[in-house]
């Protein structure tokens, strides 16, 4: 896959979906939430965490 140089470190929409999905499942199953939030829906929580950049998950790309 070819990336623009300034977008090299950005996640694709697929990676974003995978990360938020994985994180939401963790939260739903009892993992501690890393932000202060009003949300009660794990998916919304995961999205908020993703936007703040605090999710300890990265995507590995095939070279």
């Amino acid at each position, binding site marked *: 896959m070819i990336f623009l140089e300034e977008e090299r470190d950005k996640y694709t929409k697929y990676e974003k979906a995978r990360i938020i999905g*994985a994180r939401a*499942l*963790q*939260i*739903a*199953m*009892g*993992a*501690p939430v890393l932000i202060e939030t009003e949300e009660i829906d794990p998916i919304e929580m995961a999205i908020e965490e993703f936007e703040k950049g605090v999710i300890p*998950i990265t995507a590995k790309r095939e070279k």
Partner: protein
Amino acid sequence: MYITIRAVEVVRAPPERLGDDLQVVVKEMLREKLEGRMDKKIGMFIAIQDIVDIKEGRIMIGDAGVYYETVFDTLVFRPKMQEIVEGNVVEIVEFGAFVEIGSLDGLLHISQITDEYISYDEKGAKLVTKDTGRTLGEGDKLRARIVAISLNERDPGDSKIGLTMRQPGLGKLEWIEEEREKEREREKEKKKE
């Protein structure tokens, strides 16, 4: 014998423990997964000692747990052919004696106890030799050699270890002492001559 080995295993950290110290969680999970388990090549896992290295975690689709490849030191019990072991008799049965040799029991068959004819005394739960009247009962300490190993991975308790005492230097510890005493006396007499 008991040995410490370095092993590698992938272990799952459950989502509800993600906030805790990874070292602690991984160690706990390894304990749960391995302690008491039997592997034909490695032996029986007795205790997880130190976590040496935890690699980067991996997340599987549809599973909230995180999988860590872990390098760790573990204490294992690995019976070896021809190994000399010492143990206590835990049970006497018609066909021989069960001897505790570490975390597993070995079977000392009635035919492998002494060169003499030996009989089973049902009332006393003892094995008695015909000529010298030596007895072998529960709780006796003895030294034996491992001559057969058949480990069962599915049911570690069902593993079978065969022992023998029909070799010089082996036997109930008292018998060995007696033999030594005799040997000393023989040598004394020789010197006198």
